[in-house]
């Protein structure tokens, strides 16, 4: 501790220690008095006889407080004050003018030059001490504030850096999936995850796509934390062939488990079947999704469910709305951020804005572009919100398989080569359980088949859906191909499923190694009656007669194209296919 040599000191504000005080006065006697006064108060004094000296000492001595005579030869106090304040920059160095000036305009000039206060002659010890202490408090407060500000800047910089790192980690789990597909347009801020928005898209193994948009309550890390398991569940399950309903159920259960009671996730799941021209949509708490054909709004898919993460599994409903589409139809889905954009007058963009953008659509303009530019126009100079997520999914015609990229070539040595497996589901399980992911999983144990997951999934799902819908439920497939029949088909399907009794669907697998690779045989049998194909109106084609009654249209084409052989028995209630894979 270097305590002041003189009085043990009342004059120095607690904790601040001695100050370095720069004084400048051209009068030698005045300077001597002031210097002695300040020294007695325990401060360290730097003294200058004119403005030039003062500025030079300011540079070399780094004083805490400056006392300047207003009128001095060789650069007067005003000029020196300006120079000193300029040098001090952001540093707060209180500058007190010593003056016997009294005219208001003179005093005002001192303040304009950067002066923080005045001290008048004759010097008064008490007054000087009080002033120095007061200005020192101001200096310390400023110092504290700017230290805190610097700390906050630093913390904020670190936070942003951490967010970027977290974002990269998040990207590995919640990659953009197939959001870059040509039929998808989207806007999502790079850090939107920290405002709680998520957007995922995945191709389905047998064609079609799943899109999920979500909006977590809250901001920052908590919102991002919830998004991780949602991403993992979505991509994991979508890739394995689970449907939207299964994935929703799983996500809901996970979120109920991990989120605090007051957090939830508004979300929308979209299943797009491009081959059938069909969309299944589940909306829990997100704004309406808009189905647009040309510039006409065909449907609005409103929220019919509670958000994810609130209801227990047994209360949670995964019922989706099904709509038929034509190639070129576009589904616009968005989070709250879109509707809550505001203009300079504080008005909200709202649904009115969305409708305005879509209905004012000039031909050839994509509704996504129209909506984005309308939002930009509306918000004007206001900055865009960071939690605005908008996605447009376009329907197109796609026959059969999705162009799923084949996985990397695995070692052909690993995995089972010779095996049999029979899996049968019965009765009410037919209504409640989708066995396809499990069956696919079994087949995927064979590395050679893993590369063909899309084809295998398609085979399995065609076999299964045919057995269920036409075999067990006896739904006439031609219903699906007329618009009136379409709704009837799906409502009837749900109705009949709930009343299933004395029924089963059985899959038998047999896999054996071949010198070129391997062969998988699948037999799918169901408890249905088959039906009278002789009188079936769709039976006029050659293929139908060769194949049996129930494989009309696309199912047959797909199976024939993918399988190496296909045989039908018992009016289609037993189907055998054989599938070869090559090294």
């Amino acid at each position, binding site marked *: 501790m270097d305590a002041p040599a003189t009085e043990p000191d009342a004059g120095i504000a607690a904790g601040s220690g001695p100050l370095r005080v720069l004084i400048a006065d051209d009068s030698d006697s005045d300077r*001597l*008095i002031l210097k*002695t006064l300040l020294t007695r108060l325990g401060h360290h004094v730097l003294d200058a006889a004119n403005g030039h000296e003062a500025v030079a000492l300011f540079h070399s001595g780094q004083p805490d407080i400056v006392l300047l005579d207003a009128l001095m030869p060789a650069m007067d106090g005003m000029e020196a004050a300006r120079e000193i304040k300029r040098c001090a920059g952001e540093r707060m160095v209180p500058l007190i003018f010593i003056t016997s000036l009294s005219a208001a305009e003179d005093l005002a000039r001192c303040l304009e030059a950067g002066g923080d206060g005045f001290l008048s002659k004759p010097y008064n010890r008490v007054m000087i001490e009080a002033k120095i202490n007061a200005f020192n408090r101001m200096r310390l407060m400023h110092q504290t504030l700017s230290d805190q500000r610097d700390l906050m800047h630093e913390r904020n910089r670190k936070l942003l850096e951490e967010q970027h790192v977290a974002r990269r980690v998040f990207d590995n789990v919640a990659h953009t999936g197939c959001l870059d597909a040509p039929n998808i347009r989207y806007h999502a801020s790079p850090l939107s995850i920290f405002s709680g928005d998520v957007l995922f898209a995945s191709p389905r193994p047998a064609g079609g796509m799943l899109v999920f948009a979500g909006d977590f309550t809250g901001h920052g890390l908590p919102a991002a934390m919830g998004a991780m398991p949602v991403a993992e569940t979505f991509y994991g399950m979508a890739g394995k062939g689970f449907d939207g309903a299964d994935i929703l159920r799983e996500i809901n259960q996970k979120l109920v488990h991990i989120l605090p009671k007051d957090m939830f996730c508004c979300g929308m799941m979209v299943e797009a079947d491009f081959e059938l021209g069909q969309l299944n949509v589940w909306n829990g708490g997100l704004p309406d999704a808009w189905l647009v054909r040309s510039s006409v709004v065909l449907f609005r898919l409103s929220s019919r469910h509670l958000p994810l993460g609130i209801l227990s599994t047994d209360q949670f409903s995964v019922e989706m709305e099904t709509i038929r589409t034509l190639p070129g139809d576009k589904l616009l889905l968005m989070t709250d951020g879109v509707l809550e954009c505001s203009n300079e007058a504080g008005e909200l963009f709202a649904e009115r804005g969305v409708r305005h953008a879509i209905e004012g659509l000039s031909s050839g303009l994509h509704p996504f572009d129209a909506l984005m530019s309308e939002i930009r126009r509306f918000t004007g100079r206001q900055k865009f919100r960071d939690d605005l997520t908008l996605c447009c999914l376009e329907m197109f015609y796609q026959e059969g398989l999705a162009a799923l990229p084949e996985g990397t070539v695995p070692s052909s040595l690993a995995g089972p080569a010779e095996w049999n497996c029979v899996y049968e589901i019965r009765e009410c399980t037919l209504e409640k359980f989708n066995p396809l992911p499990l069956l696919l999983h079994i087949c995927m144990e064979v590395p050679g088949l893993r590369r063909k997951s899309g084809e295998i999934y398609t085979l399995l799902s065609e076999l299964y859906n045919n057995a269920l819908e036409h075999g067990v439920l006896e739904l006439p497939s031609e219903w699906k191909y007329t618009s009136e029949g379409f709704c009837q088909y799906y409502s009837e399907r749900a109705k009949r499923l709930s009343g299933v009794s004395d029924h089963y669907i059985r899959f038998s697998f047999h896999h054996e190694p071949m010198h070129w690779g391997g062969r998988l045989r699948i037999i799918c049998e169901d408890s249905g009656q088959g039906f009278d194909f002789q009188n079936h109106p769709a039976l006029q084609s050659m293929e139908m007669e060769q194949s049996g009654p129930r494989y009309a249209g696309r199912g047959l084409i797909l199976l024939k194209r993918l399988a190496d052989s296909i045989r039908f028995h018992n009016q289609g209630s037993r189907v055998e296919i054989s599938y070869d894979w090559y090294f």
Partner: protein
Amino acid sequence: MVDIPHLDEEALAELRDVMEDEFSLLIETYLTDSKERIERLKEAMMKGDSDAFTKAAHSFKGSCINIGATRLGELCQKAETAGRNGDLNQGSPVVDEISTEFQRVIEAFDTLMVRDVG
């Protein structure tokens, strides 16, 4: 102005308290400084430089007030006002008054220091 003392005893007592051993150095400094300032006042007046005159008077005033030479301070104020008005003719008698009063101040300090030493 007659009733204003040449030196403010009270102010000087306080200064002595603050300056301790350096009190006599302070007085010497003040006196040397003041001679120079009076010369500067005269020079400015001769040149008819009212700005320099004003500044010199202002500055001199400050040190006089500080040292407790109250009457001299008042005279400097008078000179400053004259300079500010650009009226150096009126300044001339004031400068004479300042010179005379300064002699009184020197004498008063001499007396004080002798008394002190004694």
